[in-house]
């Protein structure tokens, strides 16, 4: 009975630090998924672009277009109005990171599709000799533009959150950087998975790059948490929730153990063996991907509002 009457009774809502729920609980799980697939898709596409792996680029494009966008779409309260957020350079576009993100993602989807087609045609000698220079030029232009918009697609998710002044744990310029670097590390892990299926991937080079990405990630996450704990009492409370509160299991097991420690250990082991073990590689890919899910879960879960009553001075 108390729960049913709750919305009309006096309560202590927002007096203590209160966690956001719209983007992580109930239907908010869709946002979590969309955020994860943004990072995975962006990372895989960019890494594949750098390594010139067509299948990796295709997989990255699919992750963005067929996983990230639908999760965002179905989260909306009025999904069929989604087009209202896309037109660029409107008044909303000047300040809203979601509007910008919708535009970046849409442009990426279009440009990357053209790039995938031109690269495929060139790789399989399906272009008439006279058209090759033109198609080659188009392919390079699309690679540069699609890569740029892929980066924007990955980074805007961080800016969406870091813009929120009300949630001090998110309100830092480090967040977009953490998301991008973690996304690139995710991409390095996923390209190994792609390479196991399609071949044509230099596993040794990827392992070396992966080691550095994971070490940088570990340093970045540590810096982020230390920085947040100095920022304000509410942000410090978020950090405490992360390392020993309600998100501790997801953080220690998901982010630290599976997301960083296991892939890094496997990667370091590869220094001492000449032959790569596919089993270990698959384990590293799965472990790293779970880490990507855990990272976004943790960040969203400990998004805690500054209490609104100024007379609770400690926050």
């Amino acid at each position, binding site marked *: 009975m108390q729960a049913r009457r709750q919305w009309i009774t*006096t309560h202590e*809502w927002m*007096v203590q630090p209160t966690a956001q729920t719209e983007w992580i609980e109930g239907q908010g799980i869709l946002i979590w998924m969309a955020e994860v697939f943004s990072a995975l898709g962006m990372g895989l596409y960019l890494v594949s672009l750098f390594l010139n792996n067509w299948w990796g680029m295709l997989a990255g494009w699919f992750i963005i277009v067929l996983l990230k966008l639908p999760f965002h779409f179905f989260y909306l309260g009025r*999904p069929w109005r989604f087009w209202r957020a896309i037109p660029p350079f409107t008044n909303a576009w000047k300040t*809203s990171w979601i509007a910008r993100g919708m535009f970046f993602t849409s442009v990426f989807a279009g440009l990357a599709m053209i790039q995938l087609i031109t690269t495929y045609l060139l790789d399989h000698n399906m272009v008439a000799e006279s058209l090759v220079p033109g198609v080659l030029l188009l392919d390079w232009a699309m690679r540069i533009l699609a890569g740029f918009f892929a980066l924007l697609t990955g980074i805007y998710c961080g800016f969406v959150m870091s813009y929120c002044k*009300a949630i001090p744990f998110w309100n830092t310029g480090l967040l977009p950087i953490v998301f991008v670097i973690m996304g690139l590390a995710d991409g390095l892990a996923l390209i190994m998975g792609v390479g196991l299926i399609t071949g044509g991937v230099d596993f040794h080079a990827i392992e070396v790059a992966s080691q550095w990405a994971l070490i940088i990630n570990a340093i970045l996450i540590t810096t982020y948490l230390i920085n947040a704990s100095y920022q304000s009492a509410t942000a410090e409370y978020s950090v405490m929730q992360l390392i020993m509160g309600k998100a501790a299991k997801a953080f220690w097991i998901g982010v630290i153990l599976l997301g960083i420690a296991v892939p890094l250990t496997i990667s370091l082991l590869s220094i001492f063996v000449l032959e790569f073990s596919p089993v270990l590689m698959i384990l590293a890919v799965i472990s790293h991907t779970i880490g990507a899910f855990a990272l976004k879960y943790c960040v969203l879960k400990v998004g805690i509002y500054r209490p*609104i009553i100024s007379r609770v001075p400690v926050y």
Partner: protein
Amino acid sequence: MKWGMVIDLTKCMRCHGCVAACRVEHFLPLRITWVKLIAYETDEGGVLDVTTFPVRCNQCKEAPCVDVCPTGASKQRADGIVEIEADKCIGCRYCVIACPYQNRTFLSKDKDPGYFPGYPQTRFEIKGKKLYPHQRGTTTKCNFCAEKIDYGLANGLTVGIDRDATPACVNTCQARALTFGDLDDPNSNISRLIVERKGLQLQQILGTDPSVYYVDGKIGGKDNKAPESAMTGSHIQHLSSVEARAKKVFPGSKKN
């Protein structure tokens, strides 16, 4: 002109009249409230106290909800009122996340089960939905009864004084704890209250510049406390201790 509100915490008597008036005025769905009452207890050196804060959309001058809206559905009128154009809202809930005061609510299906869940809509409900067609899947919030203000201005009424041009919560407040008026007019009731009683905005640190101000003996300093002679039985919640409050209510009780 910029509309604003001053809430006198020394007068608020926690009757929930503003909450009810708002619900009735706007035919709010069953599980939505635009005005809320926050209560908290403090214990300062053994002196217990309970304070209530009526909260509603602060109609911030630098509104984060307007900035983050991807479609322009949330916008600020020239008079400072932040309104939501429901037909443009896509329900992304970014504004709900960005509002530092958590005064926006996403109207999901479970929040609108009808006034009598499981029964057909009453004529009152049907009429209400025509007058205020709150759209499921969009965000809602207090609009300072903008429609009443517009009506009042169009008919030569004085906003904040004439009932037909004043927000429903202000009209209803029996303790007269709410004052509504023009923040840009230095001679308006609320401008004077803010200056004389040291009006305080919530979360000033965020730079949102809310249009809702609070005055309270505790916030503005001890000098601002309402004289005890002016207090009614309803105001005793703001006496400094639970014991003093109990003595006021039960003067002859042996337990005191």
